[in-house]
């Protein structure tokens, strides 16, 4: 059987370790992400999401537990750790703040250059990543600082895609974008996943965005995995999610409220399209009786 793309086994990470303020930011988390899968990670602020994903390529070392990428424990030796940096591409929140090169091209090329690849291969990767991330050709020779906010965001994501990681991890990739921009960015990531077959892990507060892209969802609350399942399984538990500082999409909330009133529509609805059909089906069903 194929090894999972990423396996987290009983991972614990403490802050202020060994002091009286010691606190577990991530506590005994286990997680398996299969190759080609898209996993959504959601959780309230401070639930441990960003700390957890910083372990995926060894930026943080767990106090307890293991991180296994493509069948190998990444902390086995220096080389496995180095490899994990290339295999797992991490794109942090507001990545555009990390653009620094003279041109967009150089910025996107920074990762592959560090991988000591030949220059033709670097060029191929830059062009390919720019295309996948939706960075227009004519922007490549501009300074990253002359780009619009949305363009910068895409350039920064291209800078991670150009390493051609097996697992792409994105922390709040659509934060701060307008509704159309959010949708475009989610579509871009979906397209990237479909074209490359890569594993994608996406961290977000937006239950709507996660519903649009993820196969499975992992909910973190107070440093632990509180729920884990398909989007439908997780989103049907509105009350539990609310108790964890999260919320279901507005449309799902309407369905849950209707059910409380005795109108028997499904609870696992999270897009206006599905809601329209659900209500119509219900009305037709009643007429039929």
């Amino acid at each position: 059987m194929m090894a999972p793309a990423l396996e987290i086994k009983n991972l614990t990470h403490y802050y202020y370790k060994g002091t009286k303020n010691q606190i577990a930011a991530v506590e005994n988390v286990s997680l398996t992400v299969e190759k080609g899968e898209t996993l959504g990670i959601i959780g309230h602020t401070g639930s441990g999401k960003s700390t957890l994903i910083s372990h995926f390529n060894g930026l943080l070392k767990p106090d307890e537990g293991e991180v296994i990428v493509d069948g190998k424990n990444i902390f086995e030796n220096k080389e496995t750790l180095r490899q994990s940096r290339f295999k797992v591409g991490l794109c942090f929140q507001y990545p555009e703040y990390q653009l620094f090169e003279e041109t967009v091209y150089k910025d996107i090329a920074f990762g592959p250059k560090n991988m000591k690849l030949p220059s033709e291969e670097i060029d191929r990767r830059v062009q390919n990543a720019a295309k996948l991330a939706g960075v227009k050709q004519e922007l490549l020779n501009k300074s990253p600082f002359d780009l619009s906010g949305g363009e910068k965001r895409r350039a920064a994501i291209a800078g991670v895609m150009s390493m051609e990681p097996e697992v792409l991890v994105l922390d709040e990739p659509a934060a701060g974008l307008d509704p159309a921009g959010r949708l475009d960015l989610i579509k871009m990531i979906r397209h990237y996943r479909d074209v490359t077959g890569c594993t994608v892990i996406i961290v977000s507060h937006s239950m709507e965005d996660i519903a649009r892209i993820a196969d499975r969802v992992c909910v973190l609350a107070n440093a632990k995995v509180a729920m884990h399942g398909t989007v439908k399984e997780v989103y049907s538990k509105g009350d539990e999610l609310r108790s964890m500082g999260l919320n279901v999409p507005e449309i799902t909330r309407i369905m849950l409220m209707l059910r409380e009133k005795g109108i028997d529509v499904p609870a696992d609805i999270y897009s206006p399209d599905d809601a329209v059909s659900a209500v119509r089906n219900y009305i037709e069903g009643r007429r039929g009786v």
Partner: protein
Amino acid sequence: MSEKLIEFRNVTYIYETDEEDEAPSVPALDGVNLTVSKGEFLCVLGHNGSGKSTLAKMCNAILEPTDGEVIVAGMSTKEEENGDLIRRKVGMVFQNPDNQIVATIVEDDVAFGPENLGVEPSEIRRRVDEALKAVNMYDLRLRQPHNLSGGQKQRVAIAGVLAMQTEVIVLDEPTAMLDPVGRQEVLSTIHKLNKELGITVIMVTHFMEEAVDADRVIVMNAGRIVLDGTPREVFSNTAAVKSCGLDVPQSTELCSRLGVKRTVLTAQEAVEEIIKLCGGVV
């Protein structure tokens, strides 16, 4: 009649390009006329790059119009000597809570503004306590800001503005980086300040459902105000809203697609209308 607090008179703003090689840039604001009355809760919507933040920064003289005039409480932002007075009337809260906290203790951070104004220490104490109570952060006044949640940090930032006794708070996407609960905390705080203290609020947001409780909504596109009205008026025009790269709230969309005549804004209203469609309570 309500008192005019901020007035945009045919305001145009063009960001300067650094080199001549660039084509002349398009105006970020293009002939904007807008009057904000005392006590009003105004929500500004628009896609990225539509001019929302530029408009926000003009309200307290961070930016001055290239053309036209912005008048705040009778003072033009173009006159340099008005700058300090205007900034005492109009406070700003930005998107990223981590970029606007300066002190290592919550109450010191809130005191920073009035201290700079040279307010008496006993008066500072009073203002800081009041401001922290208003945003429901008084119990956490001795905490270190970096140990607070995003929503709590934003409320500290709002308290900092309140302690300056500003009449207007301009918030530029204050909830963009927060989780759902943090967003709710900050929003209910802003509404409370508007209702109970009569603070005028101008809030820029990308979240349509945050606009439904405003008194008035304006939609910006390409540097102009293209829609202006109550939330119900604006969101009833789904096609126009969508053509600006925005969306209507999910409740609004669902009901309009189900053929409900009235423009619905909230989940509660949507439930009422759907129950009617289903032939009343089961």
